[in-house]
Structures are given as structure tokens and as C-alpha cells.
């Protein structure tokens, strides 16, 4: 059950993963961009973890703290998008102490909406939007007992596979369209590594 304690555990995990893959994320980003994705992700999660003592039972409040952490410490595109998402998540979870299946679906839906709106992103642009979309579909389609962590792991990998050989059409990489066919989108790559330990 996803509550305050579970939330803290997950961000602790994410911080560990972001440290582990710090150089890989930077390197993946460096191939087509400015090479700061590892910094961006680690700084954001570090600041969240630094503030975990302020978490309350109200998950909405906690997500607001998370959003502020990303705003404060993580100014690159990825951090900005994540911050927007976390803020909008915090709005829909206001007052909630734990998450139900529908909440999780709503979280992904609000993330998709936020990224499309704020990032001017379309499905198929080869960004984290496509990964999140795949996860959401998987969650929705699963009929038996749901193993979220399993879905996260397989869908993030599947998304990477699906876009191999396709151009990245947004973010810094958009400027180097043809070149980008040969590379994974760094954000999508990062998501696939971050969920590994779930």
C-alpha cells in the first residue's frame, strides 16, 4: 500500500539508483545534449530525501514538497517537467493518505497531460512521454492482480526497444534529428534504470 512510509522508501531507492547511474545518465545525455541529466536527476532526488522529515500523512502535501525540491535544485528540462508533474499530482492527491489503483492511473494521466501541455510534446516524439504512456496502458490493461513494479520494469525497457532507430523530436536532441536515430532518448533510458530496484 502506497502511503507516506512507502513514498519515503521509494524516493530513498530512487536516490540510490540515481547515484549509481549518475555517470551513465550524464553520458547518455552528453551524446545528444548537454550531458547534465545525471546531475539533474540526482540533485532532484537528493533534495527530496533531504526534506523527507517534513513529509506528512497527506500525500498531496508531500508531492508538493517534492515538486519544490525539483524546482529548487534541478533546473534542466527533465527537472522542470518532473517538477510540473509533481505539482499537478500534488493537486489531485490533496488530503489523501494512501493510493488506490484509480489514483495511480490518475497520476499517470495527469503526468501525460502535463508533459503534453508544458513540454509541447506529442506521443511518438521519443521522450519520457512515450514511456509513461506505455506504462499507463499496461496498468490499464492488466486484468489480474497488478504488480506495478513489474510493469514499470518491463514497460520502460519495452519503450526503449520500440523507439530504437527512430528520431528524437523534442528536447535538446531535436536539433540533431538524424543523428538521434542511433541513440536512446536519455530521459527514457534514465527511467528504465531508475525503476530497476523497485
Amino acid at each position, binding site marked *: 500500500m502506497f502511503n507516506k512510509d512507502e513514498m519515503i522508501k521509494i524516493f530513498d531507492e530512487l536516490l540510490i539508483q540515481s547515484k549509481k547511474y549518475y555517470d551513465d545518465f550524464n553520458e547518455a545525455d552528453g551524446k545528444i545534449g548537454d550531458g*547534465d541529466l545525471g*546531475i539533474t536527476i540526482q540533485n532532484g532526488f537528493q533534495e527530496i530525501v533531504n526534506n523527507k522529515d517534513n513529509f506528512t500523512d497527506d500525500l498531496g502535501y508531500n508531492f508538493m514538497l517534492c515538486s519544490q525540491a525539483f524546482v529548487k535544485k534541478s*533546473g534542466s*528540462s527533465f527537472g522542470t*517537467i518532473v*517538477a510540473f508533474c509533481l505539482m499537478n499530482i500534488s493537486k489531485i492527491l490533496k488530503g489523501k493518505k494512501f493510493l488506490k489503483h484509480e489514483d495511480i492511473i490518475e497520476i499517470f494521466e495527469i503526468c501525460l497531460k502535463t508533459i503534453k501541455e508544458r513540454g509541447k510534446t506529442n506521443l511518438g516524439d521519443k521522450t519520457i512521454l512515450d514511456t509513461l504512456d506505455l506504462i499507463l496502458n499496461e496498468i490499464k490493461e492488466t486484468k489480474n492482480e497488478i504488480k506495478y513494479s513489474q510493469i514499470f520494469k518491463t514497460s520502460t525497457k519495452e519503450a526503449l526497444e520500440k523507439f530504437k532507430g527512430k528520431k528524437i523530436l523534442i528536447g535538446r536532441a531535436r*536539433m540533431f534529428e538524424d543523428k538521434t536515430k542511433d541513440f536512446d532518448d536519455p530521459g527514457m533510458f534514465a527511467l528504465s534504470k531508475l525503476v530497476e530496484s523497485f
Partner: protein
Amino acid sequence: MKKIINEPSNFVRESIQGLVVSHPDIYSFAEDNENVITRATKASNKVGIVTGGGSGHLPVFTGYIGEGMLDACAIGSVFASPSVNQIASAIRNGDNGNGVLCIMGNYGGDVMNFEMACEIVAEEGIKTKKLIIADDIASASYEDRLKRRGIAGMIYIFKIAGSLAESGKSIDEVFDLTSLANENIRTLGVALSPCILPEAGKPTFEITEDEIEIGMGIHGEPGIKREKLRKADPLVDDLCVRLLKDIKLQPEEKVSIMINSLGSTPLEELYIISKRVNENLSKLKIKIIKSHVGRYATSMEMAGMSITILKLTEDLEKNLLSNSKCPFWTN
């Protein structure tokens, strides 16, 4: 890492404090946000000109605050966008009751954050317009030019927008002529060495002792091609050909050029480059009205340089040459 700094985490804060304390007649901290700098003396009535962006590019962005230039600036971490809150504060501080023109480089975080900040201040009754600078021809084709990165050309935009605003033009007028300037600017650069981010403590990219990268971005983003270091003249000729193909100048047209060091490339080399640019343009009977040679938009101590061409109209020329008061601009 050979830098004269204190704690890397204080790098941005301390350098901005130094800027303000060194030029108290020009710059001032905003009262409501410690990452926003405003003019020391608030303007009145004129359209506000506001920008924001990552640190590590001085004099860009904050340095260009001053009479006839910017009103306020939001300051991000090294190479990272300022937040929505910071930008909103900069807009509020830069507003003199006649609306604010927001100028930003074409980088994801900056564009998204400015957009959201504009929505927020709109609810408070501040009218804004946004101008996205996209002068770097290395970063997308002519057809896709709206996707291009913003680099040294932005200083021309600051200057022209600032001059127009100072002369009492309305926000729509300021926006329109500055947009024209934006369309008339092309930049192309070359990087020779990386810089070191204070917090990361290691180089932003790797490049061998005899290589250069044409079109590399000011954060170390990829360019057009990596090749062996050449002599200055053939290198400049190559860059000029690409620039001229993109900007399509006619004989007798007037331009201003900017030869910008990314940091450690010294003035001597910039002038060798400027000489060659001059020769190339003269051959085509293009008239250089004004040359700017120096460090205008940097990546700390990165080695390399960029060449910017601004095609002038009568209006643009007038506003380019108008008076302004800023430690990093000589009229």
C-alpha cells in the same frame, strides 16, 4: 580543478553578490527573491525587458541589466534554468506598468518556465510577450530555424529591445522590431576546450589537443562536425560561408558583427578572426557598421569563439547604436 572559488555550492550566489557589490550604481538584488537582480534605479513608465537563464555565462544574462538594456533577470544554477517562481519575480520587478517583454534562449527548461511564469503574472494583471532567441545556425537547418539554440546573438536582442523600450515604444512595438532583429541574427561558433562545472569538478566534454568542434553549444552540446584544428583564416572562411548562406546578404547591406570568446580564447585571437571576417564581408561589399569583439556570452573558461552577424535596417541600426549604461557594453 583550477578555479578560484569557495564552496562550489556557493559559486552562483557569491559571484552575483560580487557583481552587485562591485557595481552598486547598476545592479540591485530584488527585495522578494534572492535569485533575481534588478536595476539599481527602477525605470518608470517604459516597457520592462526581462530575461533569465543559467549561470556560468557572464556577462550573460545578469550583466546586461542597465539603462537602455534589461530591467531584471532571473538567475538559475550553473547551466540550468531559473525556476518559475524566480522568473515570475523577475517579471514583477521588471514591470513598470506597461507590460514586460520576456527574452529567453531556446532551451527547454527556460522556455517552459517562462511560459508558466507568464501565465502566473497574467493573473496578476501583468501583460507579457515572449521572445525566444534562436540564432545558432549549427543547431538546426534553415527550414527548422525556430528550433535553434540561442547563443551570443541574444546580446543584440537585449540591446535593441532595451533601446526601444527606453525610447517609449509600446510593448507591441518593442516586440515587433525586436522580433525582426531576432530573425536577422545568425551565429556560428567553434569550441576548442571544455569548461569545468564547479559542482561536478570535471570537464563538460572531452576533446583532444588537436581537435575542434564546429557548432558546439555553449553547454557542450554537439555541433556540426569535429575536425582537426586549422589555421584561423580557413576556419573563419568556413564559418563565414555557412553564416552567409543562411542569412543571405546583398551587396551594400549593413551589418553589425560580434566576435565572441567563449572564455579563455584571448582578444589577440579574436582580432585575428575579426580581421578575416571583415575581409570576407568586404569582398561581398557588405558594410560593417559596428564590430563587437570580446567576451559577451561565455561558458566560464571554455576555449572557443563564435561569430554573429546582425543584418541591420535603419531602425535596428539606430537602436543598436543608441546610448546605454552597462559595464559590459560600450556604445
